[in-house]
């Protein structure tokens, strides 16, 4: 995930000085820039087994939260 970034000759809309721009370009990796991070990372497709696991864990979590709610309810009574 690297890309080449060129310094704008016409200055910077955020009012960043030339010295600071140089520090940024020499110290940060190109994909560390705020602007570079605005691009989305491509989506991946789930395998069937992964979907089964994710749904299984979702059902597990909902069921267990219901158990916790039941325990709170009985304790409160």
């Amino acid at each position, binding site marked *: *995930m690297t*890309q*080449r*970034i*060129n*310094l*704008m000759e016409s200055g*910077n*809309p*955020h009012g*960043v000085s030339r010295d*600071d*721009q140089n*520090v*940024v370009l*020499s*110290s*940060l*990796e*190109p*994909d*560390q*820039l*705020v*602007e*570079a*991070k*605005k*691009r*989305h*990372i*491509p*989506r*991946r497709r*789930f395998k069937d087994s*992964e979907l089964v*696991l*994710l749904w299984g*864990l*979702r059902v*597990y*979590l909902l*069921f*267990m*939260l219901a*158990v*916790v709610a*039941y*325990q*709170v309810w009985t*304790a*409160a009574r």
Partner: protein
Amino acid sequence: MKPVAQSEVVITHEDVDRAHDRARVSKARARRGFSSGARLLWLLAGPGVLVMLGENDGPSMLAYAATGAKFGIGFFLPFVVLTFCMAIVVQEMTVRLGAATHRGHAELIFDRFGPFWGWFSMIDLGIGNFLTLITEFIAVRAGLGFFGVRPWVAILIALVILYAALMSHRYWTWERITLAAAAFNLIFIPVAFMTHPHWHSVGHSLITWHPLPGFNKDTLLIVLADIGATVTPWMLFFQQSATVDKGMTTKDIRFGRIDTVLGAALASAAAVATILATAPLFAHKMSADNFQAAEFAQALQPIIGRFGASLFALGMVEAGIVAAITISTSSAYAFGEVARKPHSLNLPMSEGRSFYGVLTLCALAAGAIVLIPGLPLVYVVLLVNVVAVLAMPPALVFLYMLVNDREIMGDLVSPLWASILSKGIVIVLTATGVLYGVSIIAPNIFAALGGK
């Protein structure tokens, strides 16, 4: 990936602040010798220590205190150390993810898995964070209550400290202020010494895991509370986002690991010290079933004196304040990443209104709830760690899938041993949760298995 056109590149103040921090790292790395290594550790340590000491929060310290008071010195001493080893395995993955992708955890989940699963993950995080945040303010209120401070004054003090850490609008300064506050978590160590523990028994327990507790619902609840005191979903989101905000790269992963291990070592020392500090209550057969922070301090006063009890209460206050800072920050990071709003502690207020707004709003709302008279908040304190353990397996599966995703991680995917360990942790956490569910729904099963 699409190349960036010249006109698209914009450098922000956030980039500049991060670049200055990184320039110091590069300068230190260029030198040779021990002092250079120490300097690099000083510059790069932070997210790991903060996440571990931050997780030694109000409910966690109460869980350790309850462990000592209920079971004394025995099985739970090495068990707590083991849970921190588990935390190291989990948190190390977030360091690698952050350093390799420069993206926060919430952002990666939304981008890679889509909004459907992303929102599930965010709902888990949001509910867990808010409930935990409430308990942090309860700990602050209870701890300062020991000194006679009024509840609203206690909450105000916590909010002022939280806000003071943010005022510099620099990640580095925020991190150092919060680290300084987190160091007070070690206050539990002198308290443990004041109780004059039987060191031979401590050593024996750490090596042999004996005496073992009985197999029953109470033991299981403490097991769950102690696990929930060391591994929780907010830690994943916080450390990855903090690693990104600090500007760490793949070159810094070794120091990120050292930072995480150092944090775990400090936090486990404080946790073990808390168990040792309250173990005399077990020896005196004192029931601590419904104790909160102030009650533990009061119960310990005859044993360790007013000064020792005051230190214990102050430790609870620190635990609550540091966790309130880190947890509200983790919520703000996650919100910014998902809403695609600026999200960094390097942002000036004018550019980070939504980031600082969410952070402040979470803290204010949780603090305000604690001040509402008559709310049964004791249940929140008791169950928040349990909820954290239950929410961990789905969060860990997302983490596991991301860290083994070669498209975004390249050669930094987990080695086989780390994958086996993380799968094992998911299985252990899920099984513990299921056992807990069984103990509630069918408590007689424990009697059939020889427990109570």
